[in-house]
């Protein structure tokens, strides 16, 4: 069972990744899939910007433009940002809390494969009669009457991938609660673990309303229900509420782990303890709580009334307080530190002003009367891209550089990284800064073209140039990754030299069980404490060498996800659907539709029954085998990483 000794063929590697339950390998799967969808959505954004580069452009049609903007938003939020953050959560959180794996390794794999097949299903829409075209919010009044199967792909794809996300969220919560190493109390947990915990809790409470909303949309469109059809007594506002009760927390689901990543990066390169650790934890929890109290600020113009608008406006403004606490804590961590400006630190330094800018425009929109003016304009587009690109994407790029040594035993090139940062960062501000003013000048969002000489031409042109620069930045990052494959392995611990938390105490490449003995955590920043006391071993241990219990690999998560994938086609081509009846969308016979639905779900249920009837005790790596693996790893490192 050793991770080093066994040589595998190509097929063996594929099988290994299809069946893996190892959090480190699942992290790589998330990273690869997330990058793929990030690239697709980024390409869609470039097409959008090329279309808007000059007035009266006919580069792409209005219909295709709607599909592109819908898929760009949906993919970036659900299928790129979420899995990329999950990649780091999977790779780093178990190491940070001193665990050998997550609480539910099987569910961890299931979460990934559900997400992946949901994402693939959604993207098949491009080849099967048109992508969804009602915006990533897919308001019922629009989407209910959208011809073709686009919206059905959206509903079913997100339903499947959302289930995967929820499962992963539950897994992380339980992992962080029950699997912490001896001495790792809650108030000694690194900030990234804290933000992952709070973010997973938000997933736990935010995804069910989305599931409910998507289900209502599914039965409305595909099985003739009447939730949103006002002629049958339905109410289209219900979708907006359910969507935003999910949608607003979703923003915090994404940005909190990003905050956590920067809270790891900044102390390492300022070489100072994180300033105000307990206030950071408090602020994280407060943001998580308030995140659920503000959804209706997306609906100020719906007409909920002055009282409702006022309450939600005040609640929204209140979120700026804990967020401000965090910003000041980061600045005060840097203040007086012995700063090393590496690539991750560059991203952190770029993040603070960019994100603050996005936050300030957010508070502007929280004022309901002003929001009436800004609603549906490019000001909104500028605002949320400042938050998402300035906050989340910088975190992802920065922590890719930061954690690459742990995840792959290689380092990304610093010089190329600096170049990438500047190209991406300047491109980002070029793209979105001017869009604030386009919005104030009255340019509405989600329009496929505009007339010349309204004062929008120059800004749109510059904005598109910026988008191309961002695209170039991403390409450079990918090149950096490809170059890193050819670099020599690091074979060391604490690559940056100033690591503070547990993940840096381990020598790379990591054995599959992470810790040969569980570490004893003696305080906040446990590895820093050991280094200060001159411990050359990394950590002190809480237990003697002994047998290690590990989970078995399984192909079932993969097959279960295929089952839901098949069932989704059955629902999609339902002959009872509104569009099928109207003749605007293809359908199959009732028998075939039901056969696909029942067959697909049956396959999934069969796997669940197999899983529950067949006992799975995991296996024990015996003490001698652990010693053998450690010896092999030591030889491997001594030979410079050649087998």
């Amino acid at each position, binding site marked *: 069972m050793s991770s080093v000794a066994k040589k595998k063929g190509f097929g063996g590697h594929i099988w290994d990744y299809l069946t893996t339950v190892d959090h480190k390998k699942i992290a790589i799967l998330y990273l690869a899939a997330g990058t793929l969808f990030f690239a697709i959505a980024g390409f869609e954004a470039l097409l959008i910007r090329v279309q808007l580069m000059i007035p009266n452009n006919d580069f792409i049609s209005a219909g295709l433009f709607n599909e592109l903007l819908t898929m760009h938003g949906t993919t970036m939020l659900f299928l790129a940002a979420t899995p990329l953050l999950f990649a780091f959560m999977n790779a780093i959180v178990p190491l940070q809390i001193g665990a050998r794996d997550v*609480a*539910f390794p099987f569910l961890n794999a299931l979460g990934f494969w559900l997400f992946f097949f949901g994402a693939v299903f959604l993207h098949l829409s491009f080849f099967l009669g048109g992508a969804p075209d009602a915006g990533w919010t897919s308001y019922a009044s629009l989407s209910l009457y959208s011809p073709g199967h686009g919206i059905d792909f959206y509903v079913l794809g997100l339903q499947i991938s959302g289930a995967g996300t*929820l499962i992963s969220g*539950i*897994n992380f*919560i*339980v992992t962080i*609660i*029950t*699997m912490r190493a001896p001495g790792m109390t809650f108030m000694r947990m690194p900030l990234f673990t804290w933000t992952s915990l709070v973010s997973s809790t938000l997933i*736990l*409470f935010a*995804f*069910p*309303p989305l*599931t*409910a*909303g998507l*289900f*209502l949309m599914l*039965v*409305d469109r595909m*099985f*003739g*229900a*009447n*939730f949103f*059809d006002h*002629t*049958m*007594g*339905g*109410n289209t506002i*219900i979708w907006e*509420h*359910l969507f935003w*009760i999910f949608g607003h927390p979703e923003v915090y689901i994404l940005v909190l782990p990003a905050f956590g990543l920067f809270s790891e990066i900044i102390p390492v390169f300022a070489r100072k303890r994180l300033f105000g650790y307990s206030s950071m934890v408090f602020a994280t929890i407060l943001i998580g709580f308030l995140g659920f109290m503000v959804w209706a600020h997306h609906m100020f113009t719906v007409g909920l009334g002055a009282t409702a608008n006022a309450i939600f406006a005040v609640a929204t403004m209140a979120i700026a307080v804990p967020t401000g606490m965090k910003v000041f804590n980061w600045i005060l961590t840097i203040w007086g530190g012995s700063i090393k400006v590496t690539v991750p630190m560059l991203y952190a330094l770029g993040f603070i002003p960019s994100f603050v800018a996005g936050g300030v425009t957010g508070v502007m929109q929280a004022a309901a009367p002003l929001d009436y003016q800004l609603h549906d304009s490019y000001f909104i587009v500028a605002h949320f891209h400042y938050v998402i690109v300035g906050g989340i994407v910088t975190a992802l790029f920065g922590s890719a550089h930061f954690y690459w040594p742990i995840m792959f035993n290689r380092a990304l090139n610093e010089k190329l990284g600096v170049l990438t940062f500047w190209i991406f960062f300047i491109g980002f501000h070029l793209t979105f800064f001017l869009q604030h003013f386009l919005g104030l000048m009255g340019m509405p969002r989600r329009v496929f073209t505009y007339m010349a000489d309204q004062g929008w031409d120059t800004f749109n042109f510059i904005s598109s140039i910026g988008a191309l620069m961002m695209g170039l930045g991403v390409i450079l990052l990918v090149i950096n990754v490809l170059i890193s494959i050819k670099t020599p392995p690091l074979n060391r611990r604490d690559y940056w030299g100033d690591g503070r938390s547990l993940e840096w105490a381990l020598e790379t490449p990591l054995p599959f069980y992470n810790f040969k003995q569980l570490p004893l955590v003696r305080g906040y920043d446990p590895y820093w404490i050991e280094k200060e006391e001159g411990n050359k071993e990394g950590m002190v241990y809480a237990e003697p060498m002994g047998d290690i*219990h590990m989970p078995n690999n399984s192909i079932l998560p993969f097959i279960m996800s295929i089952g839901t994938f098949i069932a989704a086609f059955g629902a999609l081509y339902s002959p009872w659907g509104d569009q099928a009846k109207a003749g605007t969308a293809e359908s199959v016979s009732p028998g075939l539709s039901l056969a696909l639905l029942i067959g697909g779900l049956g396959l999934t*249920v069969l796997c669940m*029954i197999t899983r*529950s*009837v067949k*006992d799975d*005790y995991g296996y024990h790596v015996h003490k001698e085998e652990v010693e053998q693996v450690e010896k092999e790893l030591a030889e491997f490192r001594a030979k410079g990483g050649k087998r």
Partner: protein
Amino acid sequence: MDVNQKFTPQNWPQHAETATMEGKNKFVGIWIFLASDTVLFASVFATYLALKDQGPAGMEFSAQGLFELPLAFMMTMLLLTSSLTSVYAMYHMKNHNAKGVITWMAITVLLGLGFLALEIYEFQHYVHIGFGYTQSAFSSAFFTLVGTHGLHVIIGLVWITGLILRNAKRGLTLYNAPKFFAASIYWHFIDVVWVFIFTVVYLMGVLG
């Protein structure tokens, strides 16, 4: 602790469900899952309340005229009793009495099946009188809310039946004790949700 160790009532741990790491994870996991399931039901409840009695112009159906308390009361009694019998099963688990666990879990399943039969009868009756799923926003919301609960009941019945069949002959171990415990917590949750459905849909429906 070895999960397959044979126990006697004398050395059976006080909390067998959380005696192993896997058991502890299952225990925390099912509670966390139920927290999220609560929000799912809250969403469907809110939708139902928003769409109650809403339909096309001149709709003849209303909650007041449609729902009948005697049937709903019988369903409530069946489900509440099944919750009690699952508690008996957990009581026997504490005493390491495998036969008691299996027997009382089987009775729980039977009561659950009775509930399900009444629910199917009720749905079939509504469809028969013209109150089908696609009839109005009200009907869609009603069938979705009560049907989501019914689906949870079916999942619970399949789950518990599977546990009974798999573990009928092999006694209680630290491997299967957490599984029974998680299933019983889930079953209580279904019961609590039904109490809310009885109140919000049937009682408030009939009282107007």
